[in-house]
């Protein structure tokens, strides 16, 4: 499986964010997208996720499921964590598992992996920022998707959480997954660097 982008141009709000961007990633590889603030790291992830339309160039996935589009094979973990404060931890997670569909894992197991098994029935509104992030990570585990698009994934995670997350990423890569992460902090795993917009 290979994901590649060729000569991408991104325009947002009438301003050109980047142009002529090329990238490629293969199964089992992590790409760390780095660059200063506003260089278009998040925009690149949203282009791949189909949440932005490129002004030029194209993105292609070779060797994936032919019946599914690229966004349908991606997990997107953005700044906003898609959790409903009124619903409990378990309700939030089972909703996304049911809604996203496909191959899935038992949700109690993934909650235990991210260290939230004690908070299953707590409304998500009471979670701390780090716990919310852990719950979002549990979504990546519960529903299997080959491509992970992560935007500042280690934000708000404590040291133990970052170690746990590095382990999860390694496991995902070893299963033939692919990770594209926009980040300022080191990911904690072997990754290839993709620099956007000059040296930070």
């Amino acid at each position, binding site marked *: 499986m290979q994901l590649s982008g060729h000569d991408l141009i991104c325009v*947002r709000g009438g301003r050109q964010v980047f142009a002529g961007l090329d990238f490629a990633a293969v199964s089992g590889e992590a790409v760390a997208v780095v660059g200063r603030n506003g260089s278009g790291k998040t925009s690149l992830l949203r282009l791949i996720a189909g*949440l932005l339309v490129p002004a030029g160039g194209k993105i292609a996935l070779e060797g994936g499921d032919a*019946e599914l589009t690229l966004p349908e094979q991606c997990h997107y973990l953005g700044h906003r964590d898609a959790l409903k404060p009124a619903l409990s931890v378990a309700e939030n997670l089972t909703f996304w598992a*049911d809604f996203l569909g496909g191959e899935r894992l038992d949700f109690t197991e993934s909650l235990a992996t991210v260290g939230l098994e004690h908070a299953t029935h707590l409304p998500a509104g009471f979670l701390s920022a780090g716990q919310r992030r852990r719950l979002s990570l549990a979504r990546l585990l519960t529903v299997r998707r080959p491509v992970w698009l992560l935007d500042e994934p280690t934000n708000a995670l404590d040291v133990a959480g970052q170690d746990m997350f590095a382990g999860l990423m390694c496991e995902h890569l070893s299963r033939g997954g692919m990770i594209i992460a926009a980040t300022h902090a080191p990911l904690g795993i072997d990754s290839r660097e993709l620099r956007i917009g000059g040296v930070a």
Partner: protein
Amino acid sequence: MCGADSRRSNHHWKPPMTALSALIRRDIRIALRVGGGALIGVLFFLTVVVLMPFAVGPDLALLSRLGPAILWLGALLASLLTLDRLFMADHEDGSLDLITMSRTPLELACAAKALAHWLAAGLPLIVATPVLGLLLNLDMVATGAVALTLLAGTPALTFTGMIGAALAVTLHRGGLLMAVLVLPLSIPVLIFGVAASQAVIVGPMTFGAPFSILCALSLVSLVIGPFAAAASLRHGLD
């Protein structure tokens, strides 16, 4: 590989149903919890209708003549009250991104959200109508007629209102814009809803004709609403 193949044929028909029912159950659950919109709508409806006799005065004949119109206006405003949050809440917390990316067609997801909104916020209004009919001096038959027209007409309000809710997300404007966009669209529904109820109370028109048109309006909006809302959401991707 065999396993992969059986899964593939599976995920084309069964999971979308699971996904849609999960979305409907989630939205209803949120609406019914503390801070959700379901109860607010009914309370607003109650307040509007209870205020009317004080404004109109103690003229029972006039009140029963205005009754259907008051109930319809109250229901219209109450259903719009919570509708502008239909997509805005999901947009703000990032859920809409994941819904857009998912394997469920966006049109179906929009329809499911509107259906959930109608079940949680529209249906309680219809249940409350018989009680409020008493306050407006409407007899059993008249109240029944209003409740029936509301049952047939409120889906049209929700499904056309959904277009406004989607535009509110696209244009990054909430509340007021949505009311300005949606209220003109709801005029035909209001006309035929009140006409059908009046036909039962005072005649001389038959109930059937305006009621059929009301049902037709609901069916048309059921078809157009999800497509228009999904198109608006896709166009506004950002």
